[in-house]
C-alpha cells in the first residue's frame, strides 16, 4: 500500500460546509419553482369519505390542490424486502392515500402555491370527511383478539411470521440447563432525526417527457429504480435522481417516500413547473420512518460456570401502519440471525411476528436490527452473570467464539454458507479492561457504595454484520430481498493526471469524498488532492445500491480498489511500451511504471495517462484512456467487533444517570482514515447512549405521537456527555483486499446495552435486574423506590 490509506487527513468536503456554500436540498432554487405543503391525517386510523378542496383552490397564490384520486394511476410504493412470507399482505403507502389512513401523518392532499406560507394557509381550507376507526399502537396487542384490524389481507394485523435456528434443540437446551432466566423487554421506538429533514424537488419536462427529482436520499439509484419500475411504470431512463448535499440520514433517508413521487407527479400535472416540498420537523417526526420498536420475551439457558447453552427469543416487531421499503428485513434477517453475538451459543431459536399498528412506518435506523439483537444478547449475558453471581466480564470471556473457530457459523444461521470472517473478541475485552483499570474500578465502586453512592460499570461486546452484502446471500429466496447488494465504481485518470472516481454509493456525512479519494490516491501513488470523488446523481455515476449497512467502504471502496488495479495493469502495459520494455518486465510502484530494478527511468502515472489519452502511440490493440468500471459483489459480509465499557453514577434522590466515562475498543479492520473512523464511532456511540437514557417515541392510545417535537423527544445535547474514549484492535478482514470491515454503525450497535448494563449494575444493591430503555430519571427513581429498600 501507498501513503494515503491510514492517514488521518482533514476532509476534502469541509471547506464548503464550514463556509455555508454547500447546497442542501432546500438551498436549491429553480426558475418558476412552486412550493408544496402536504395535508396529513390527524387521525391514526380512519376512512376517507370525501375531500373538498374548492376553498383551498380559490385562495390567491394557490397553483393547484391534489388528492389521492388525482394520482390513482400511480401504483402504491413497493416493499423491496419482503422477508418472512410477506407477499400478498404487503400494504404500502400511496403517493397520497385515497380511501383510508392507518397512521397519523399519512398524506391525503397536497397544496401547491407560490410560497410555502400560502400553501400552509390553504391546507386549513381543505375539508376532509373522515370516518374515525378504532386504534391499536402496540406491536403485540395488535395481534390479540378484538384488536382493530388495519388491513383486510393481514388477519390479526400480522404482516409476517419468521423464524431462524432450531426450536427443538433450543427447547432441549433450556430443559437441560443449570439455570434458565426468562426476561421480557422492549426495544423502544426511536426517531432517527437527521438534522436536515427530508425534501424533494420534482421537475417534469413536457418536451422530453422525463423527470428530474432532487431528493434527500441515501440511495438515489435505488430510488430511480423503485419510482420508475414500480410506481410510475416508465423506463428507468425517464427519470434522473439527484441527491444534493444531504444532511444526515441514519437510515431514514434510504427509503422511497410518497413525497418523492408526489413532487414528480405534481410537476407533470402543472406542465413542468418545478415543485419543491421541504419537510418540517413536525412532519419529519410523524411521516418519516422510525426505528426499533420490539416487544420481546426471551429465555437464556446456562451452566453454573456461566457457559450459555441456549437462547430462545420471541419478538413482536412493530412495522407501523404501512410497510416502508425494507421494513420486512430489519427485524428478521438483520436481527434474528445476529442473536449469537460474539458468543458460541450452541442453540438459538428466534421467532418474529411483524405487525401492523396505527403508528408511523418503522424501518432501518442506524444499526437496523443489529442493535436490537446486540442489546438482547448483552442483557442476557448480564442477567446470567447476576444470577450466577459472576463477573460480567468473565461470563463474556467463557462464551466468546475463540479465534481458532473462524470462519464461524453461528447457530442463528446467517444463511447460505455465510460465516463470521475473523475475530479476536477476547483481545478487545482485555484491552478495554486494561484501559479502564478494571480491578481498581471495582474497588472504586465498592468504596462508592460504602459511601452511599451508586456507581455502575457496564460492558458490551458486539459483532455486527457489515459490508452488506453478497448478492447471493441477501437475494436468496426466502429472505425476500429482491435484488443484489454489490457496489460500483468508475475510475478515470484524465490526461492532466487528475483522477475522477464515481461511486454508486452516497455520502451524507460519512466523508466519502475524502476516504474514497484516499483509496484511489494510495493505490495510484498520487496526492489525495488530485482525486475527485463524484456521487449521488444517477446521470453520470454507475448504478449503485447506496449508503447504509456500513457498506460504502467495505463494498464501494473495494470496487474502487478493483478499478484502480485494472487501470494499473493497463498503465503497466502502456508504460512498458513507452519504456520500450516488455510488459512482464515492468512494475508499478509509488505512482510510476519502471523496469524492475531500474526505478530511475520511470514513467509517472500522469505521463502514462497523457499517453493513453492522446493515444497516438499505444501498444497494438490497446484502447485509449485509463478508465475502468467495477461492479464488485463481495464474497461475504464483514464482521467488525469490539468491547465497550460505560461507567455511570446514579443520583438516588432524582434517578438521574450521569455518564462518567465511556470507552470504546473497536476492531473495524483496516482504517482508511482514523479521524473519520473515530468520528463515526463517537457519533454512533452517542446515538446508542441516547437510546439507553433519553430517546423514546411515544404514541398515545389514540395514535397521536406525543413525543412529536424536539421539545419532547430528547436528542442528546453536548452537556449530557463526556468525551468518548476510543481505542482499537486491528484484525484486517480477509473478505476484501483492503482488509476493511466498516465502522458506520458499530458505535450504535454497541452502546445502548453498555449504559443500560452500567445502570443496572449501579442499582444491583436494590435487587434490580432489568429496566426497559430509555432509563429516564423518573424510571430509575421509581425502580429504586419501589424496590423495597429504596428508603433508608
Amino acid at each position, binding site marked *: 500500500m501507498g501513503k494515503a490509506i491510514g492517514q488521518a487527513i482533514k476532509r476534502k468536503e469541509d471547506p464548503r460546509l464550514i463556509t455555508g456554500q454547500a447546497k442542501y436540498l432546500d438551498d436549491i432554487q429553480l426558475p418558476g419553482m412552486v412550493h408544496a405543503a402536504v395535508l396529513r391525517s390527524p387521525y391514526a386510523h380512519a376512512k376517507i369519505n370525501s375531500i373538498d378542496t374548492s376553498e383551498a383552490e380559490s385562495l390567491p397564490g394557490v397553483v393547484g390542490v391534489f388528492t389521492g384520486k388525482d394520482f390513482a394511476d400511480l401504483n402504491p410504493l413497493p416493499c423491496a424486502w419482503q422477508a418472512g412470507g410477506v407477499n400478498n399482505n404487503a400494504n404500502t403507502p400511496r403517493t397520497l392515500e385515497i380511501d383510508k389512513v392507518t397512521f397519523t401523518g399519512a398524506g391525503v392532499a397536497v397544496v401547491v402555491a407560490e410560497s410555502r406560507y400560502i400553501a400552509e394557509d390553504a391546507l386549513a381550507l381543505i375539508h376532509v370527511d373522515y370516518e374515525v376507526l378504532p386504534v391499536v399502537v402496540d406491536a403485540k396487542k395488535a395481534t390479540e383478539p378484538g384488536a382493530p384490524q388495519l388491513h383486510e389481507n393481514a388477519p390479526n394485523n400480522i404482516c409476517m411470521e419468521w423464524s431462524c435456528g432450531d426450536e427443538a434443540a433450543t427447547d432441549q437446551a433450556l430443559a437441560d440447563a443449570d439455570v434458565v432466566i426468562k426476561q421480557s423487554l422492549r426495544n423502544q421506538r426511536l426517531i432517527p432525526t437527521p438534522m436536515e429533514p427530508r425534501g424533494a424537488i420534482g421537475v417534469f419536462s413536457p418536451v422530453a417527457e422525463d423527470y428530474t427529482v432532487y431528493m434527500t436520499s441515501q440511495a438515489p439509484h435505488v430510488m430511480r429504480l423503485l419510482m420508475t419500475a414500480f410506481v410510475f411504470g416508465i423506463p428507468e431512463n425517464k427519470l434522473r435522481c439527484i441527491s444534493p448535499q444531504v444532511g444526515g440520514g441514519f437510515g431514514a433517508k434510504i427509503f422511497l417516500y410518497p413525497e418523492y413521487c408526489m413532487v414528480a407527479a405534481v410537476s407533470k400535472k402543472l406542465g413542468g413547473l418545478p415543485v419543491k416540498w421541504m419537510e418540517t420537523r413536525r412532519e419529519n417526526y410523524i411521516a418519516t420512518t422510525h426505528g426499533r420498536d420490539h416487544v420481546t420475551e426471551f429465555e437464556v439457558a446456562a451452566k453454573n460456570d456461566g457457559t450459555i447453552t441456549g437462547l430462545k427469543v420471541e419478538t413482536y416487531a412493530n412495522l407501523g401502519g404501512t410497510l416502508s421499503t425494507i421494513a420486512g428485513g430489519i427485524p428478521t434477517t438483520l436481527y434474528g440471525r445476529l442473536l449469537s453475538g460474539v458468543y458460541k451459543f450452541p442453540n438459538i431459536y428466534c421467532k418474529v411476528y411483524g405487525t401492523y399498528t396505527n403508528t408511523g412506518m418503522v424501518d432501518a435506523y442506524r444499526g437496523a436490527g443489529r442493535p436490537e439483537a446486540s442489546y438482547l444478547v448483552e442483557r442476557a449475558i448480564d442477567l446470567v452473570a447476576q444470577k450466577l453471581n459472576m463477573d460480567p466480564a468473565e461470563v463474556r470471556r467463557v462464551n466468546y467464539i475463540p479465534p481458532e473457530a473462524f470462519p464461524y457459523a453461528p447457530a442463528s444461521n446467517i444463511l447460505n454458507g455465510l460465516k463470521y470472517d475473523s475475530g479476536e473478541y477476547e483481545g478487545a475485552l482485555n484491552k478495554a479492561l486494561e484501559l479502564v483499570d478494571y480491578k481498581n474500578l471495582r474497588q472504586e465502586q465498592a468504596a462508592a457504595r460504602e459511601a452511599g453512592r451508586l456507581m455502575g460499570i457496564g460492558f458490551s461486546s458486539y459483532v455486527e454484520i457489515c459490508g452488506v452484502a453478497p448478492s447471493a446471500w441477501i437475494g436468496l429466496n426466502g429472505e425476500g430481498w429482491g435484488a443484489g447488494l454489490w457496489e460500483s465504481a468508475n475510475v478515470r485518470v484524465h490526461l492532466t493526471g487528475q483522477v475522477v472516481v464515481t461511486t454508486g454509493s452516497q455520502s451524507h456525512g460519512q466523508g466519502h469524498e475524502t476516504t474514497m479519494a484516499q483509496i484511489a490516491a494510495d493505490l495510484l501513488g498520487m496526492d489525495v488532492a488530485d482525486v475527485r470523488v463524484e456521487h449521488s446523481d444517477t446521470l453520470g455515476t454507475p448504478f449503485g445500491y447506496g449508503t447504509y449497512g456500513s457498506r460504502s467502504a467495505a463494498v464501494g471502496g473495494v470496487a474502487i480498489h478493483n478499478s484502480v488495479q485494472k487501470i494499473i495493469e493497463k498503465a503497466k502495459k502502456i508504460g512498458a511500451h513507452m519504456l520500450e520494455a516488455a510488459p512482464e518486465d515492468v512494475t508499478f510502484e509509488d505512482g510510476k511504471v519502471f523496469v524492475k530494478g531500474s526505478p530511475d527511468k520511470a514513467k509517472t502515472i500522469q505521463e502514462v495517462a497523457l499517453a493513453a489519452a492522446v493515444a497516438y502511440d499505444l501498444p497494438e490493440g490497446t484502447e485509449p484512456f485509463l478508465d475502468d468500471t467495477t461492479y464488485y459483489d463481495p464474497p461475504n459480509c464483514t464482521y467488525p467487533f469490539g468491547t465497550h465499557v460505560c461507567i455511570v453514577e446514579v443520583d438516588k434522590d432524582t434517578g438521574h444517570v450521569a455518564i462518567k466515562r465511556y470507552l470504546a475498543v473497536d476492531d473495524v479492520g483496516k482504517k482508511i482514515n482514523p479521524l473519520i473512523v*473515530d*468520528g463515526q464511532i463517537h457519533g454512533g456511540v*452517542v446515538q446508542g447512549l441516547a437510546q439507553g437514557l433519553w430517546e423514546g417515541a411515544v404514541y398515545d392510545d389514540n395514535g397521536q405521537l406525543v413525543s412529536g417535537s*424536539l421539545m419532547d423527544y430528547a436528542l*442528546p445535547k453536548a*452537556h449530557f456527555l463526556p*468525551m468518548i474514549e476510543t481505542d482499537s484492535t486491528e484484525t484486517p478482514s480477509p473478505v476484501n483486499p483492503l482488509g476493511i470491515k466498516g465502522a458506520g454503525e458499530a458505535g450504535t450497535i454497541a452502546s445502548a446495552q453498555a449504559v443500560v448494563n452500567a445502570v443496572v449494575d449501579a442499582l444491583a444493591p436494590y435487587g434490580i435486574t432489568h429496566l426497559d430503555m430509555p432509563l429516564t430519571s423518573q424510571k430509575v427513581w421509581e425502580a429504586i423506590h419501589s424496590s423495597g429498600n429504596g428508603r433508608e
Partner: protein
Amino acid sequence: MAEITVTVNGKSYTRDVEPRMLLVHFIRDVLGLTGTNIGCETSVCGACTILMDGQAIKSCTQLAVQADGSSLTTIEGLASNGDLHPVQEGFWEKHGLQCGYCTPGMIMASVDLLQSNANPTEDEIRHGLEGNLCRCTGYHNIVKAVQYAAEKMQGGN
C-alpha cells in the same frame, strides 16, 4: 408588506417583506444566503443561529421585521478576505462536522461563546452549546474544535 433595512455581512439591504416572514426565510429566500439552515420549528436545534448585532440568536424565532435596522452576520460572512475564522478552522482541523447541516449554526454559536468566554473549560463549552443539536459527531470533536479555536484566538498555535 413592511419595508426593512438590514445590514448582512457588511452589506445593506432594503426589502419589502410580509410581516409574518421569519428572519431565517428572509436571509435564505430573499437574500439567497442559504448557508443558514433550518432544523426545527421549536427553537431547539440551533441550526439557524446567526449573529444579530454581535450576539448569537436563533433566526427562526425572529420575524424579519424585528431585525429592521440591525446588523447580521451569517456563516457566509465569517471568513475575512478568504481567511477562515479560527472557529471554522477548528471545525475543519478537528473533524467537528460530518453531515455539516448543524455546522453553520454550531460555528456561529461557538463564535458567540468565545466572545464572552475566551478560554472556556470543556464543561463551559458543552453548556455553552446547549442551544445547538448535532446528530452526527456526538459533540466530541465539536468540543475539540472550540478548544482549538480558543487556543488559536489567544495567540497559541
